[in-house]
């Protein structure tokens, strides 16, 4: 077992992921000049990422629980492949303190933040505490409330509408919006029942309900000493049931003072915890009140990192590898320039006409768009079998231009050109979103898409 004090090494990277992000990391390894080995399930043995890497190692059956989520299999694959580092991508083990710990124990470099930070940001409570300590605004809310009467008193102070939330738990269970005092008693009782049923815990509290919120996040990178840079923000407000569909950089139509404050908050939080990798700090912006508050930190590379790369010219995955190898941040904040506007549409193997049911299967025709200012990150190709075992993302179609309107036009053209035959995709749907007047005018918010009438062909 090697010492934890040994200098980190990144000369050959085990990529513990699949799909487009595995391919993206292979490319970054080439850029940085290090080896790349891909760990695959049997379902992905013949994937583009596996074929592009120096070597692919089969770590288990298709079920993620028995392959991509198995720490022992991933670590063993790194050893078998002669790797000194593990890149977890996003999802799967990307935020697993257990994998980060196992890397330390086995003398491997985890390409991501330390296990300490993964634990800190993995808990809603400790993440909020860290944000509070760094002076980052939190959503207006209460402590645990004893009963509906206490909730009514607290809501009078917060101002309606309010959201009843369970203290422990997540995923929307036990949450109720209350828009007037007379609804409180019934809503509180229902929320309590749901919280007990879902989490075995009756503790509830209130937060101010933000009816129209934009999801704004800040891309950051830290060197572990407290120095943290930001690479501007992204707006990811176009969501379907909390799944992002369209993302853009920079966040449009934010008052300059608000935008600066959000970016400074992200840097302050990450600096205060000596953040040591790339990451994203997510905020909700209250459109009506013109303020913002902390949501969470995603301590990993994100799906939508590409739009930030397009407006900064910076390869964030290559930066992540260099930081993992102990290199310093290569720029000052002033040297990070944000130019133009970039937008991304996620294309999923889902059928919008069948309630977004996943549509795995064989891709019989594959013609992704190309051209100036267009970028497509995808692991798909003609003849590729989209397996039914994993998430349905098949391509991220991006466009960059001098301004937002030009980027929208360019992306609409790219989506119109995109042909994926053999399976149903969300291409047409995301194209329609771009054409919405509300999207052009930046009147959209996180619940906007769910309120739009579902288009029918």
């Amino acid at each position, binding site marked *: 077992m090697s010492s934890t004090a040994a200098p980190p090494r990144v000369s050959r990277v085990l990529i513990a992921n699949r799909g487009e992000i595995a391919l993206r990391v292979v490319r970054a390894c080439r850029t940085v000049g290090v080896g790349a080995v891909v760990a695959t399930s049997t*379902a992905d*043995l013949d994937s583009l990422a596996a074929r592009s890497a120096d070597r692919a190692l089969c770590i288990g059956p298709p079920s993620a629980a028995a*392959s991509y989520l198995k*720490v022992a*299999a991933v670590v*063993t694959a790194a*050893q078998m492949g002669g790797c000194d580092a593990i890149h977890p991508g996003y999802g799967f083990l990307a935020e697993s303190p257990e994998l980060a710990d196992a890397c330390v124990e086995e003398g491997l470099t985890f390409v991501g933040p330390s296990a300490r930070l993964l634990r800190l940001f993995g808990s809603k409570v400790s993440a909020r505490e860290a944000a509070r300590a760094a002076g980052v605004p939190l959503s207006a809310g209460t402590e645990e409330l004893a009963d509906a009467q206490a909730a009514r008193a607290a809501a009078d102070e917060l101002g309606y509408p309010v959201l009843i939330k369970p203290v422990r738990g997540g995923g929307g269970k036990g949450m109720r919006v209350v828009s007037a005092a007379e609804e409180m008693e019934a809503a509180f009782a229902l929320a309590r029942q749901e919280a007990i049923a879902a989490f075995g815990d009756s503790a509830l509290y209130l937060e101010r309900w933000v009816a129209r919120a934009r999801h704004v996040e800040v891309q950051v990178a830290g060197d572990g000493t407290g120095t943290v840079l930001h690479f501007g923000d992204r707006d990811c407000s176009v969501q379907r049931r909390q799944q992002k569909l369209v993302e853009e950089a920079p966040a449009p139509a934010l008052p300059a003072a608000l935008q600066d404050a959000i970016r400074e908050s992200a840097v302050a939080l990450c600096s205060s915890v000596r953040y040591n990798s790339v990451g994203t700090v997510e905020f909700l912006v209250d459109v009506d009140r013109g303020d913002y508050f902390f949501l969470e930190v995603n301590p990993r590379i994100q799906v939508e990192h590409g739009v930030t790369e397009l407006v900064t010219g910076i390869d964030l995955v290559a930066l992540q590898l260099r930081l993992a190898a102990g290199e310093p941040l290569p720029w000052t904040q002033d040297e990070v320039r944000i130019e133009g506007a970039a937008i991304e549409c996620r294309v999923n193997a889902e059928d919008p006409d069948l309630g977004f049911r996943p549509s795995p299967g064989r891709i019989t025709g594959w013609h992704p768009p190309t051209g100036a200012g267009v970028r497509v990150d995808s692991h798909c190709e003609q003849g590729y079998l989209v397996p039914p075992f994993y998430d349905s993302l098949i391509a991220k179609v991006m466009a960059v231009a001098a301004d937002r309107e030009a980027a929208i036009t360019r992306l609409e053209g790219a989506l119109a050109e995109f042909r994926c035959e053999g399976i149903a995709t969300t291409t047409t749907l995301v194209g329609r979103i771009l054409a919405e007047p509300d999207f052009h005018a930046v009147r959209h918010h996180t619940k906007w898409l769910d309120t739009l009438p579902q288009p029918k062909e």
Partner: protein
Amino acid sequence: MHLAEKDLAALIRAVQDSDVTRFDLVTPDFEIHIARGDDADTDVAPLPQSSTASPEAPAAPAPVAAAPALAAAVPAAAAEGLVEITAPMIGIFYTAPEPGADPFVALGSTVEAGMTVGLVEAMKLFTAVEAGAGGIVEQMLVSNGDYVEFGQPLVRLRPTA
């Protein structure tokens, strides 16, 4: 043994309509593995998988049938009428329970279904490699201490039945 497409469809339906969560059929010519529900591809019960798995390898959640064709990497097994035992996980393969001990099996050993033929270690955890069918060991494909991938053929048996 020959299996028509409609037989395969009927087989899948039969498994689907029953309480069976896992169905494995190994013949000298092909293998079928069907898993359904929560039991689908649990990693506790190593079964002879279809050689190096194809992209359409069988697994949960829907009942899926393996293609009868064995992958090109090990063309010999089927042709020679042999049954393969494959690695249940990635790790280091050991032929004996501990250093210096007698190996679980050697060339010519008679193996019964369910018998341990080796161990695979990943991060100090040992998993037994069990024979999915009985037979006589005809080929040992890896050596003691070799790294093996999930699904990698380890031992080939001549079926006794």
